[in-house]
C-alpha cells in the first residue's frame, strides 16, 4: 500500500474555487491590451502547454499512471497539423484541431492497448520507448516529415475569417492568443467535468486500489485505456495549438526529453490537484524562456529541481499553497 503523505482537502463546493479563478480570468482576458506582444505570445505558449499538462495529469494524478511518453501525442498533434498543411493544403484551424484529435485518438488507442495492461515501471518505460519509436520514425521517413529540419507551418485561419496575413506577430499576440485562450478554457471545463464525473471517480478508485476497484465491478483495463486516450487527445490538441506559435514542428518534440518537461510541469504545480498542472505549466514556461537564455544545461536545472521537489515539496506549488492555507484556517 502506498503511503503518500499528502493532505487531500475534500472540497464539496467547487463554487468556492471559482472566486480566485475570476481575477485570473480577468487578467487573461485583458492581457493583450496591457502587456507587450512578446509577453502575450509567451503566455499563449504557456496556455498550450497547460492543456498538455492537464491531459497528462488525468493519467498521473487521477489514474495513477506515470507516462514518460506524452511527447508522442504532443508531436502527433503537431505533425498532424503540419502534414495537413503540406499534403492537403488545409489552413483552417478548426480542421487542424480536428485532425490532431483524430490522429491522437488513433495513436493512443493503439499505444494504449499495449501500455495499460502494465502499471508503474513497465508502463513508464513502455511509454518512453513508444515515444522514441515515433521520434526515430520522424527521422527515418524524412521525406514525409522533413527530418531534422522539420516542417514549416504557416499561420492558420481562425473561424474561417481571421488570418495571419500581414503582421504575423500582431496576429499571434491578439487573435491567435484569444483563440488559444478559448480552447484552453474549453479544455479546462471539459477536463473538470471528466474528473468530477462517475468515470473520474472510478479512475481514482483504480488509482487507489486496483483490486478493490475490480471487486466493485469496474473494468480496469478498459477504463485505463479510455483515460489514456483522453489524456493523449488533450496533449495532441496542445501540440496543434503550439505549432503556429512555433512556426514549425521538429522531431525533438517527439523525444522523451520533451516528455520530461511535461512531467516536470505537473509535479512542479502539484499533480494531486486539478489546477496544479496548469500552474506548473505556466510557471515552467516562464522559467524555461528565461533560463534557456542563460544556460544550455537546462536539463540539469530541471532535473535538480525535480529531485528537490520530490524530496521536499512533493505536493508542488498548488498543493503546498493549499496546505499552508488550510493550516492558517485551522490554527491549533
Amino acid at each position, binding site marked *: 500500500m502506498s503511503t*503518500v503523505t499528502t493532505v487531500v482537502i475534500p472540497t464539496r463546493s467547487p463554487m468556492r474555487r471559482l472566486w480566485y479563478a475570476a481575477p485570473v480570468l480577468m487578467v487573461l482576458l485583458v492581457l493583450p491590451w496591457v502587456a507587450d506582444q512578446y509577453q502575450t505570445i509567451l503566455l499563449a505558449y504557456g496556455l498550450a502547454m497547460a492543456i498538455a499538462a492537464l491531459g497528462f495529469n488525468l493519467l498521473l494524478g487521477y489514474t495513477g499512471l506515470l507516462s514518460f511518453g506524452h511527447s508522442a501525442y504532443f508531436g502527433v498533434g503537431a505533425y498532424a497539423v503540419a502534414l495537413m498543411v503540406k499534403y492537403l493544403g488545409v489552413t483552417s484551424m478548426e480542421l487542424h484541431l480536428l485532425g490532431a484529435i483524430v490522429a491522437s485518438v488513433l495513436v493512443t488507442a493503439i499505444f494504449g492497448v499495449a501500455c495499460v495492461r502494465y502499471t508503474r515501471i513497465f508502463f513508464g518505460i513502455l511509454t518512453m520507448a513508444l515515444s522514441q519509436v515515433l521520434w526515430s520514425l520522424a527521422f527515418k521517413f524524412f521525406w514525409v516529415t522533413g527530418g531534422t529540419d522539420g516542417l514549416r507551418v504557416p499561420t492558420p485561419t481562425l473561424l474561417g475569417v481571421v488570418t495571419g496575413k500581414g503582421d504575423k506577430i500582431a496576429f499571434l499576440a491578439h487573435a491567435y492568443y484569444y483563440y488559444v485562450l478559448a480552447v484552453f478554457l474549453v479544455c479546462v471545463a471539459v477536463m473538470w467535468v471528466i474528473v468530477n464525473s462517475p468515470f473520474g471517480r472510478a479512475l481514482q478508485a483504480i488509482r487507489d486500489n486496483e483490486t478493490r476497484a475490480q471487486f466493485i465491478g469496474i473494468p480496469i483495463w478498459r477504463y485505463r485505456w479510455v483515460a489514456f486516450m483522453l489524456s493523449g487527445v488533450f496533449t495532441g490538441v496542445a501540440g496543434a495549438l503550439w505549432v503556429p506559435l512555433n512556426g514549425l514542428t521538429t522531431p525533438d518534440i517527439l523525444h522523451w526529453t520533451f516528455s520530461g518537461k511535461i512531467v516536470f510541469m505537473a509535479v512542479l504545480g502539484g499533480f494531486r490537484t486539478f489546477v496544479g498542472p496548469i500552474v506548473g505549466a505556466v510557471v515552467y514556461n516562464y522559467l524555461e524562456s528565461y533560463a534557456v537564455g542563460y544556460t544550455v544545461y537546462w536539463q540539469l536545472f530541471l532535473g535538480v529541481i525535480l529531485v528537490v521537489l520530490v524530496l521536499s515539496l512533493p505536493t508542488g506549488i498548488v498543493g503546498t499553497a493549499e496546505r499552508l492555507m488550510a493550516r492558517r484556517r485551522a490554527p491549533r
Partner: protein
Amino acid sequence: MDIVLIHVFNALLYASVLFLIAGGLSLIYGVMRIVNLAHGNLYAFGAYVSAWIIGYLSTSVAVGEAGSGAPTWVLLALLPAGAIAAAAAGALLEPTLLRPFYKRAEEYQLLVTFGLLMIIDDVIRFLWGPYPLSASVVFENFGSVTVGDTLYPTYNFLVIGVGALAAIFLWAFIYRTRFGVVLRATSQDMRMAAALGVNVNRVYVQAFTLGCFMAGLGGAIIVPSQSAVLGMGVDALILSFIVVVIGGLGSLEGALLGALIVGIVREAGITWFPEVELAVLYLMAAAVLLVRPAGLFGRA
C-alpha cells in the same frame, strides 16, 4: 559459413554488453524492487570516463609517433575505470537520493530517478561536451583476426570474453558466496532478512553499487569499438528494458537469455531489414509482453 560466424560473433558482442547493462538493472530490481531510470546513463557515464582516460593517456606523449602514448596493456588495464566510476556514483546516489523513497509511493521513485537521468545527461554534456569521445586506439591496437575470407576485429572477442566471464562470476557470486546468500535472502523477503540480523541498508547499497558497476563496465568495454555519444544512455535503457521484458525483471538468467535473444534478433534485423531493426525489437518485446508478461524467468 564464415559470414554466419561473423554474425554470430556480432550477436554475442551485442549480447555481452546488453547482459551487463540489463543484468545490473535486473539485479537492482531483484534485490531492492526499484527500477533506476538513470541506469542507462550510468552505462554512458562509464563509457565516457573510460574513453576520456584512454584518450588522455594515449595522446599524452608527443603526437605523430605511431603507437604513441601509453602501451596498450596499460590502456586495457585502465579501461575498467569507467566501471569503477559508475560504481562510485551508485554508492553515492543510493543512500542520498534513493533511500528516502523506499517507503513512498512508486511514482516518486520513478520521478526521482527520472530527474537523475536528466541530471546525469547534462553532467556528461558539461564534462565532456556534445561531441563523441573515442577510445578507438585500444580497438585498433588489437588488430584483427582472419575468419574465413574476412577480417574480424580481435577486440570484439575481448568484449565477448568479458561478458561471459561476468556471467560466470556473477553466478558464482550469487549462488556460491555468503554475500550472495544474503543478497538472495534480502531480495526474497526483506523484512525476514532484517529480522535475522541482516543490515538491509548495507545490502542495498552494495547491490546498487554492483548493478552500477555492471552498467559502467558495459560502457567501458564497448567504448573502444564505438565512441561515447550523447543519448547512448537512453538508447541503452530502452534496449535493456526489452531484454528484461523478454527475460523477466529480477532474474539474471533472464537477463542473459534476453540479451542473447535481443543480440541475435538485432543482428538478423540489421542484416536483412536495416530500416526496421528497432521496430523488430519492439515488436518482439510487445509480443512477449502480451503473451507472458512476467518474461521467461521473471517473478511478477
